[in-house]
C-alpha cells in the first residue's frame, strides 16, 4: 500500500471498494480510479494497442493516454472516473468496444444563458469568476474537477496570506453566496462554437435514479478561458514503462489523494516546475535519488532547497534510457551537450518511479476551436494564444502565464472587464496576492538521442496511445512530408482516444528535429476540433432517441387505420397507411384487391397528409399566376384547377390542386412531403421579390381532414353522405367544389378531383371531425363493399393514368415539357421559371422524357431505378450508353399486367421501340409507350 496515513482531499470516513478487471481494490470517496490504483501500488495497465508493451498511469488528468477504462460501454481515462462503491470496470488497450445491448442510462440536456462563462476552476478562473460576479452579473463557472481550486489544491502556495486550499474554500463560499453564480463541477467544456456557444458535458455521480450525465448548451455574452496547461513528457528510449509519470501527476496523487507513486524516485525536468514534486516526495518519506535537470545552471534557490532536503541535483543532464523489465527499475543518465547530443559517461540510477517534466503546453484547445490563433513562444517553448475572438479572454496558464501572482491578476482583470462589457459594475476590488520568485527559463528537450539512425528508434515513444515512435516520424519525413497535418495522418500520431492532447506538441517538437528546423514554431499545430474530451453519443442524443428521435405525425383517422391492421409507410414525418392486408393476404394481393375496388366499385383513402396552404389578399390571384406555370387569376370562385410550379431554373418543384374560395382567397394542396418547402417558396417570393403584392400565406394542413372517395360507385356513396348536395354530373361537374353539411351534421367542403382517373370526390372536414367522417363514409358505402386503400394503391392508380409524382418521377432536372405537360404551361403570362424553358438546354430535342414501359413478358416487374439501354447497344469502348431509368413500376390489376414509368432520352420519339433493362441476373425487354396506360380518353372521371 502506498496510501499515506494522513493528508489528501479524500474522505477517509467513506471507504469504498471497486474492481478493475475483476480485481478488488480499496478506495475512499474522492478517489478517481487512477488515484486508487496508484494508492494500491497497481500502476500497471495496458498493454499497449499494437506493441503490447506494459504501460502505467502517466497523468492525473484528462490527458491520460494509458489508463483507459470501459465504463458501461464508454472508453474513459481512469483519471476522470470517480470511484463509487461497487464500481466494476475493465481496462482497454486504446480501443473501446461498442456494447451490443442498448444503453438504458438516462441522459439529459439543458440550456443555460450567462453574462459571463468562466471555463476552468483554478486560481485564474476563480479570480475571474469572483471579479465578474461582484457586480451581479450572471456567471457560469465550468470546471472539470470534482472541486474548485485547480493547482491550488495540489501545491503549497499561499494566496492572500492563507494556504491555497483555504483561499479556495473562501472563494467558493463567496461564489455560493452570490445568487447569480452557478458552478458546474465535473463538467468538461468539450466544444466552443461561434458567438460564445459552449457545449458542456457534466458527469454526475451518486445520484441513483437521476441522469448519469447532463449536457449543457451554454450561450454566454462573454467567455473567460482559464483552462490551465498540460505538462508534457520527453521522448527518450523506453520512455513508456509503468512507473514513468508526469511530475505534476506524481505531485497531484501525493497531495490530493495521499497516494505515493513510488519509494525511490528520479525526477527529470527541463524547467522549475518539477522541483516542488521532488521536495514533496521527500517530505512524504520517499527517497529522491536525484533531480536530473537539462539546464546547466538551474535556479540556485531550488537547488539549495533540494540539497537541504538531501536531494542531489544533476544539472546539464538528461535521462536517455530506462530499465525494466516491467515497471521501471532504473534509469540511465548522461550529460547533454549544447546541441542536444549526449556526451561523457553514462550513469545508472536505480528507481521505481521516474517523474518527468518536459515543459508545459497551455491548454489552448477551446481557444483554438473558437478560431483563436496561436504563436510560438521560444522562451516558454510553447504555443500560446495570439489573437482571440470577440467577447472573450484567455487567462492564466492557458495564456502562457505561469506565476501564480500573475494568474490571479490576469483573472481578476479579465473578470472585471467581462462584467463591464456585459453591462455590470465591476467594483475595483483588490487583486489576490501571492509570493513571487524569479524563475529560470526552461531548456526544452524534445528528443533525447539514441544510438545510430533515428529511423530505427522504435522504442522512443511519441504517442503512447497509437504506439507512435520517432521511427514513424522519420519514415514520414523521409517520404517527403513536411506538414504536421500530413505527418499526423501518415503516422496516426494524435488520432487516438486522446486526440493528441498529450502528444500533439511533443510530436511537433520531434518533427522539427527530423526536419532540422529551429522549433515547432515554424511548423504550427494540427487543427483543434471539438470535442476536447470524449463525449458519448448517448449524451448528445439525450432523450431524443427511439420513438422520440423524430416527431411522428399522424392523422385524426390514425387509430382506425391501426385497428384495421394497416401496414404503414413513412412519408416525411407522416405515418400513412401503405395497404390494408386482409387475413392471408400479402402486399401484392392486398394492393391488387384495393386497385380493383377503386376501378370497379368504390374505395376510400385518408388524404389528410396532403400539404394545404391558404393564400389570402387582394393580389392573391396575381401572385399565384406568377408562381404556377398555368393561370390561376381567372379561376372562377367555386372551381378547382391542377397546378404545377417550377424553380427559377425551370425545373418542376411541386404540384397540386388550387381551389378558389373567394375573390381574394385560394386554397392550395401540395405533395405530402413538399408542404413546408412550398410554403417557404411562396413566402420567399412574396416577401423578397414582390413585397408590393397584397398577399399572405398560412399552412392549414392540420386544420383539415381529407378523405378521397373513389370509383364508379363514389357518386352513390357521396350522395348518401351529403343528402343536401346535388351530386349529378351536371349539378356538380369535374374540377368544382361545394360547401355542404353532411348527413352526420358536419360541415364539409367536397371537391370533384381525381388522382386516379376514376369518378372521385375529396371530402374535407375540420381536422377533428376526420375520424367521425371516415366512419360516416364507410357506413354510407358499407353495402357497396367500400374498400379502404393505402398509398401503394394510390401510386398504382395514378401511374396507370400517367400522373407523375414530383420527387419520384422527377428529380430536379425535369421540366414540365419533359413530362409531356406542355398543356399546363401558359404561353401568355410570366411565371417563375418560364424564361428558363427557352434556354438552349431546355429546348434540345434529346432531353429525357416521361414515357410508359410495358414489359414484353406481362409478368416481369421492373425494379425502380433500373437503367435502360438499346438492344444490342455496343460495348466496344467498354461503355454502354444509358438511355434513362425506371421511375415507377407496378402490377396493374385493371390491365392484368406489369407496367412502369420511366425517364428516357428522346423518349417521345421512341414510342413503339423495344428497349432493354439489364439486371444482375437477366434482361427485361420493354416496349416504350405513352405515359397514360389506362382510359386514354378520360371517359371514367364522370363515372
Amino acid at each position: 500500500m502506498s496510501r499515506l496515513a494522513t493528508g489528501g482531499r479524500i474522505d477517509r470516513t467513506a471507504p469504498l471498494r471497486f474492481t478493475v478487471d475483476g480485481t478488488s481494490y480499496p478506495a475512499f470517496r474522492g478517489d478517481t480510479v487512477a488515484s486508487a490504483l496508484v494508492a494500491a501500488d497497481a500502476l500497471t495497465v495496458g498493454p499497449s494497442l499494437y506493441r503490447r508493451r506494459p504501460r502505467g498511469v502517466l497523468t492525473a488528468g484528462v490527458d491520460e493516454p494509458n489508463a483507459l477504462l470501459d465504463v458501461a460501454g464508454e472508453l474513459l481515462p481512469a483519471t476522470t472516473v470517480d470511484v463509487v462503491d461497487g464500481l466494476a470496470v475493465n481496462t482497454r488497450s486504446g480501443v473501446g468496444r461498442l456494447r451490443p445491448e442498448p444503453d438504458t442510462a438516462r441522459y439529459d440536456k439543458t440550456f443555460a444563458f450567462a453574462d459571463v462563462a468562466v471555463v476552468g476552476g483554478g486560481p485564474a478562473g476563480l479570480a475571474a469568476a469572483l471579479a465578474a460576479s461582484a457586480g451581479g452579473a450572471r456567471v457560469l463557472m465550468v470546471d472539470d474537477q470534482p472541486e474548485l481550486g485547480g493547482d491550488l489544491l495540489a501545491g503549497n502556495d499561499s494566496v492572500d496570506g492563507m494556504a491555497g486550499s483555504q483561499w479556495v474554500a473562501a472563494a467558493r463560499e463567496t461564489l455560493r453566496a452570490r445568487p447569480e453564480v452557478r458552478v458546474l463541477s465535473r463538467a468538461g467544456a468539450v466544444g466552443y462554437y461561434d458567438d460564445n456557444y459552449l457545449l458542456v458535458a457534466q458527469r454526475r455521480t451518486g445520484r441513483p435514479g437521476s441522469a448519469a450525465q447532463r449536457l449543457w448548451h451554454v450561450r454566454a455574452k462573454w467567455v473567460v478561458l482559464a483552462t490551465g496547461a498540460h505538462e508534457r513528457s520527453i521522448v527518450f528510449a523506453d520512455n513508456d514503462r509503468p512507473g514513468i509519470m508526469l511530475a505534476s501527476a506524481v505531485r497531484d496523487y501525493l497531495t490530493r489523494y495521499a497516494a505515493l507513486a513510488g519509494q525511490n524516485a528520479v525526477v527529470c525536468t527541463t524547467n522549475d516546475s518539477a522541483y516542488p514534486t521532488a521536495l514533496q516526495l521527500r517530505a512524504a518519506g520517499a527517497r529522491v535519488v536525484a533531480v536530473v535537470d537539462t539546464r546547466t545552471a538551474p535556479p540556485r534557490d531550488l537547488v539549495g532547497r533540494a540539497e537541504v532536503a538531501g536531494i542531489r541535483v544533476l544539472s546539464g543532464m538528461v535521462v536517455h534510457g530506462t530499465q525494466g523489465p516491467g515497471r521501471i527499475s532504473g534509469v540511465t543518465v548522461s550529460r547533454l551537450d549544447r546541441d542536444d547530443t549526449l556526451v561523457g559517461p553514462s550513469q545508472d540510477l536505480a528507481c521505481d518511479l521516474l517523474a518527468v517534466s518536459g515543459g508545459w503546453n497551455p491548454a489552448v484547445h477551446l481557444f483554438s476551436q473558437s478560431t483563436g490563433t496561436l504563436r510560438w513562444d521560444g522562451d516558454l517553448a510553447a504555443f500560446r494564444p495570439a489573437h482571440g475572438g470577440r467577447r472573450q479572454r484567455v487567462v492564466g496558464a492557458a495564456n502562457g502565464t505561469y506565476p501564480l501572482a500573475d494568474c490571479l491578476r490576469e483573472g481578476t482583470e479579465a473578470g472585471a472587464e467581462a462584467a463591464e462589457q456585459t453591462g455590470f459594475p465591476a467594483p475595483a476590488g483588490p487583486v489576490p496576492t501571492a509570493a513571487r520568485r524569479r524563475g529560470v527559463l526552461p531548456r526544452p528537450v524534445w528528443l533525447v538521442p539514441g544510438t545510430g539512425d533515428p529511423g530505427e528508434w522504435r522504442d522512443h515513444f511519441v504517442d503512447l496511445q497509437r504506439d507512435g515512435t520517432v521511427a514513424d516520424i522519420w519514415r514520414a519525413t523521409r517520404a517527403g512530408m513536411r506538414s504536421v497535418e500530413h505527418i499526423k495522418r501518415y503516422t496516426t500520431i494524435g488520432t487516438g482516444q486522446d486526440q493528441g492532447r498529450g502528444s500533439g506538441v511533443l510530436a511537433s517538437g520531434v518533427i522539427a528535429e527530423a526536419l532540422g528546423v529551429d522549433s515547432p514554431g515554424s511548423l504550427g499545430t494540427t487543427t483543434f476540433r471539438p470535442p476536447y474530451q470524449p463525449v458519448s453519443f448517448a449524451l448528445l442524443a439525450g432523450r431524443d432517441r427511439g420513438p422520440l428521435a423524430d416527431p411522428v405525425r399522424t392523422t385524426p383517422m390514425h387509430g382506425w387505420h391501426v385497428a384495421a391492421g394497416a401496414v404503414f409507410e413513412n412519408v416525411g414525418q407522416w405515418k400513412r397507411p401503405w395497404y390494408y392486408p386482409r387475413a392471408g393476404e400479402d402486399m401484392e394481393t392486398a394492393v391488387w384487391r384495393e386497385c380493383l375496388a377503386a376501378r370497379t366499385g368504390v374505395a376510400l383513402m385518408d388524404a389528410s397528409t396532403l400539404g394545404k396552404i391558404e393564400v389570402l389578399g387582394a393580389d392573391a390571384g396575381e401572385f399565384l399566376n406568377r408562381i404556377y406555370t398555368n393561370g390561376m387569376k381567372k379561376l372562377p370562385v367555386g372551381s378547382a384547377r391542377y397546378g404545377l410550379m417550377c424553380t427559377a431554373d425551370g425545373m418542376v418543384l411541386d404540384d397540386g390542386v388550387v381551389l378558389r374560395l373567394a375573390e381574394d382567397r385560394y386554397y392550395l394542396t401540395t405533395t405530402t412531403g413538399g408542404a413546408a418547402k412550398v410554403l417557404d417558396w411562396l413566402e420567399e417570393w412574396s416577401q423578397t421579390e414582390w413585397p408590393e403584392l397584397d398577399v399572405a400565406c398560412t399552412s392549414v394542413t392540420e386544420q383539415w381532414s381529407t378523405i378521397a372517395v373513389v370509383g364508379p360507385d363514389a357518386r352513390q356513396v357521396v350522395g348518401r353522405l351529403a343528402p343536401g348536395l346535388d351530386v349529378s354530373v351536371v349539378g356538380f361537374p369535374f374540377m368544382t367544389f361545394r360547401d355542404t353539411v353532411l348527413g352526420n351534421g358536419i360541415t364539409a367542403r367536397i371537391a370533384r378531383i381525381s388522382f386516379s382517373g376514376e369518378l372521385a370526390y375529396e371530402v374535407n372536414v375540420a381536422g377533428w371531425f376526420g375520424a367521425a367522417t371516415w366512419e360516416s363514409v364507410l357506413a354510407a358505402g358499407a353495402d357497396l363493399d367500400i374498400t379502404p386503400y393505402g398509398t401503394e394503391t394510390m401510386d398504382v392508380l395514378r401511374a396507370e393514368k400517367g400522373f407523375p409524382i414530383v420527387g419520384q418521377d422527377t428529380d430536379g432536372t425535369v421540366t414540365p415539357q419533359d413530362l409531356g405537360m406542355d398543356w399546363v404551361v401558359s404561353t401568355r403570362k410570366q411565371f417563375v421559371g418560364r424564361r428558363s424553358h427557352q434556354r438552349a438546354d431546355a429546348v434540345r430535342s434529346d432531353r429525357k422524357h416521361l414515357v410508359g414501359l410495358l414489359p414484353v413478358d406481362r409478368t416481369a416487374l421492373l425494379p425502380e431505378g433500373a437503367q435502360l439501354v438499346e438492344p444490342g447497344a455496343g460495348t466496344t469502348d467498354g461503355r454502354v450508353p444509358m438511355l434513362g431509368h425506371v421511375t415507377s413500376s407496378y402490377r396493374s390489376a385493371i390491365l392484368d399486367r406489369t407496367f412502369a414509368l420511366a425517364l428516357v432520352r428522346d423518349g417521345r420519339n421512341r414510342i413503339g421501340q423495344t428497349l432493354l433493362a439489364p439486371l444482375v441476373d437477366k434482361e427485361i425487354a420493354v416496349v416504350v409507350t405513352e405515359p397514360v396506360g389506362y382510359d386514354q380518353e378520360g371517359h371514367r372521371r364522370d363515372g
Partner: protein
Amino acid sequence: MLLISCPWCGDRAETEFHYGGQAHVAHPADPDAVTDAQWAQYLFFRDNPKGPFAERWCHTAGCRRWFNAVRDTRTHEFLAVYRPGEPAPVLR
C-alpha cells in the same frame, strides 16, 4: 452556433434560421428581354467574397420573415442586419 439578430424578433440561435444566399440579386424585370447569358448569370452566378457579404436569411422557425444581413465570411461576424427593400448599409 451563430447568434443571429432577426430584425423583428431579436437575437435567436442559428438553428431557427434558413440561409438564402446572396442578397440583392434581382429577378430581371422582363425575363424575355435578357439574353441567355444574362439569364444564366441571374440563375447560377453568385459572389463568394472573403470578407463582408450581403446575404439573405429567413427566420424560418420564428416569424417566417426574410431579411438581409452583411456577414464577414472570414469570422462569421454579422456586421449588420436590415429589412428587405432597405439598401445594404455602407460599412466603414
